[in-house]
């Protein structure tokens, strides 16, 4: 019988630490049917805007809807690619430039599935999850982030 998957929390308060990423990787060493892991990390960029320089992004979300949607995306990707594991973490709150705000992690027997699934997950997370980034500027103002 296939294991029933339930919505998991994807939100992390504050930045995602490299230690958390290391810990997550280490957790997979007992899954010896995995041959490849693909990881994407989003890092806060010190963009120059006409209004000032970005020093942090403050993320908010419609959390209940985002978790339902993330679950739907997860199920879609699991049914499309032969994956062993899939993990999504997104920061909420204020994340400073140079810090990690998104961590997407896919694992599979052969590398292609992990890579393609990771790529598709990142696209869908950016396009479909109700999350908003407020770019905090060094001029004390802010602008709302726009995904391209």
């Amino acid at each position, binding site marked *: 019988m296939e294991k029933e998957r339930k919505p998991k929390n994807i939100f992390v308060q504050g930045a995602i630490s490299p230690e958390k990423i290391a810990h997550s990787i280490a957790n997979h060493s007992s899954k010896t049917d995995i041959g490849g892991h693909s990881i994407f990390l989003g890092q806060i960029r010190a963009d120059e805007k006409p209004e000032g320089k970005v020093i942090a992004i403050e993320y908010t979300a*419609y959390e209940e*809807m985002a978790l339902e949607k993330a679950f739907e995306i997860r199920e879609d990707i699991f049914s499309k690619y032969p994956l062993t594991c899939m993990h999504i973490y997104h920061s909420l709150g204020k994340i400073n430039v140079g810090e990690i705000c998104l961590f997407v992690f896919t694992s599979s027997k052969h590398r292609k599935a992990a890579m393609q699934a990771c790529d598709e997950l990142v696209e869908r997370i950016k396009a479909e*999850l*109700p999350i*908003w980034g407020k770019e905090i500027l060094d001029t004390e103002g802010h602008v*709302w982030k726009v*995904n391209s």
Partner: protein
Amino acid sequence: MSQTITIKAFGMVAEKIGSAELTLENPGTLLALKNQLATRFPELKEMKFGFALNKKMLTSDSVIPVGAEIALLPPFSGG
């Protein structure tokens, strides 16, 4: 049975209307709600945003059920 609905606003929309949550009498349909919001918050007219009804995106006019939660969602910018 209460005829109110809950409006949740996010991101730039919440900033514009100065509030993240409102309770309104149910105007019946999404179109009626849009008109009501436009009257109450004229600054919304220049903004691009979508609607979710009970956490599902709405792509066309809809009847709003009793006790619904309607969210005003500016373009997503996660990641």
